């Protein structure tokens, strides 16, 4: 099997007239945890939506297992999307179903899972994210962190080879965030899943990331391992990873 699961070349994306991504290129290796970082509003969620085929790029190539997502028709796209898992920034759980039914939904809709096993498979996935006791609760009854984990359980419902996860630890306490990172590492090891994760958390990058992509104003600023960030020649990359504020903020002339 090929070593590279996603290969993006010269991706350009617009919202109307507004250019969000400007010539983004990178590769994701099979079985790694690939993290996308960058300032708020720099286009990370947009990039993720392009990767999973929810949006069409203006130009450029997105190869997933050597087929171009950008030119797939609706059926091929659906086929591809059945093979990946997506956990959205705001969890995207269906509010009218219990947590268990949310996880069971993809299994019932297109999963080919034996009917007698669905309930147990749901409990298996929920235990993997530590929510075994929450099977019959409604999403509205969960805390923010539990909702994130339930979203992840739904994303991994069918053992996808690739999981997209938008800001898993945003809004979680440090312990819970660390727990989530730990869980993602375990899942990667146990199910040999590739994770593409958008995040702001330096700690989770240090703890879990194999490689990091840094976006800035729609362009790739840096792509490499966590070690390489420390010796990067680009000032802004080191600034981001060393958590130094911008000059003008330290000078206090915000007004």
């Amino acid at each position, binding site marked *: 099997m090929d070593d590279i699961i996603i290969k993006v070349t010269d991706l350009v994306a617009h919202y109307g007239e507004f250019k969000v991504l400007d010539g983004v290129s990178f590769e994701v290796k099979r079985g790694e945890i690939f993290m996308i970082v960058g300032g708020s509003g720099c286009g990370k969620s947009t990039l993720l939506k392009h990767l999973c085929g929810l949006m069409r790029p203006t130009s450029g190539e997105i190869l997933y297992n050597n087929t171009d997502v950008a030119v797939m028709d609706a059926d091929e796209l659906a086929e591809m999307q059945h093979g990946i898992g997506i956990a959205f920034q705001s969890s995207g759980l269906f*509010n009218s179903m219990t947590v268990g039914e949310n996880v069971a939904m993809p299994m019932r809709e297109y999963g080919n*899972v034996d009917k007698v096993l669905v309930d*147990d498979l749901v409990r*298996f996935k929920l235990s993997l994210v530590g929510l075994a006791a929450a099977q019959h609760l*409604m999403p*509205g009854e969960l805390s923010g962190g539990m909702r994130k984990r339930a979203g992840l359980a739904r994303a991994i419902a069918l053992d996808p080879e690739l999981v997209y996860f938008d800001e898993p630890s945003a809004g979680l306490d440090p312990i819970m965030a660390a727990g989530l990172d730990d869980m993602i590492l375990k899942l990667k090891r146990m199910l040999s899943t590739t994770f593409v994760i958008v995040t702001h958390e330096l700690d989770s990058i240090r703890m879990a990331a194999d490689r990091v992509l840094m976006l800035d104003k729609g362009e790739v600023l840096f792509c490499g391992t966590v070690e390489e960030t420390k010796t990067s020649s680009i000032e802004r990359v080191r600034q981001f990873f060393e958590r130094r504020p911008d000059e003008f903020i330290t000078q206090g002339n915000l007004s």
Partner: protein
Amino acid sequence: MSETRLTAPEQLNNATGAQLYEEAKRAWRAGAATLLLDLAPTRDMDSLGGAWLLKIAGDMRRRDGEFKWEGHQEAIADFMTMLEPALQMKPKKPPKPPGLFDSFTDTLVNFVGEFGEFMGLCVDTLYWTAVAPFEGRGFRFNAFMEEAHEMGVRAVRIVCLMNFLLGLIIAMLSAAQVAAFGMQIYVADLIMIGFARELAAIMTAVVVSARTGAAIAAEIATMKVQEEVDALRGMGINVVQYLVTPKVAALIVVLPCLVTLGLVSGVAGGALWGVLVLGFRPAVWYQQTLGAAYMSDIMQGMLKTFFFAIAIALIGCHNGLRVRGGSRGVGLMTTRAVVMDIFMLICIDIVFAAIFYYWLE
């Protein structure tokens, strides 16, 4: 108490998991109270295999049996630590829908609770609309104007159209009925009295409750679901003052105006039929209509509209604030608001009819 020992396969996947389940079934058919699974041989495990494992444990515990395991290898240690709580626990049953008797008492309790909430909202609204502004505690005049524009000005077209068409239909219907007696001119009286007393008010209120009542409920319910209402509370802003008062006040001002326009358009609809089809001269029809226009009828029709306005706005807000869950809750509450609105309109109308046609005769 018998204990049965099973040995797990080397690879725990769908096929071997199903096999293991069969073995477990045989064991508990033979009366085993405890299953002991020897996991030592297992080197690898996938999701479906794990699901079968949970199924065995779950079915065992549902039978009040015991499930234990021992000696797993390092390779599946992660799995076993994560699965442990689920393996130790009896699977929960989904909550049952309530039985007949439960549901009756529940309904009663819910109704009383909801009625209390509604009364609370009424009192709060009364205070914040009629008392607080005069104590200098503020009234959101800009919001009031915006709401009045949205609920009133933008509803003019649909209200006029509906009343106009209703006037036309009633003229057609009644003219055909009285044609044999040559009393078609009295259709003008019928339309004038009918619209002044009942039809303009009811028709307009129904249109407004479908339009504005639903919008109020949906807006407030969405705000509640997205924690905007909590955000307001957290800023120390009174929700009733901020959200409910401008809407109630706007509708109280706007609905009588709309009903007046509705009355005029209804009468115009009737006149169109009378003049164009029944062939009366406009002046004749006009005189006949004026002769049937009593101030007391019009006032009686107008008086109702204030109560209609209060009912529509408060029911919308009440249902919006009671929303549970997410998007589905918003839909349910919007539907509920419109249904309750129309029911309340009829109730108010009956009370008024009783008062004016019997007690005050």
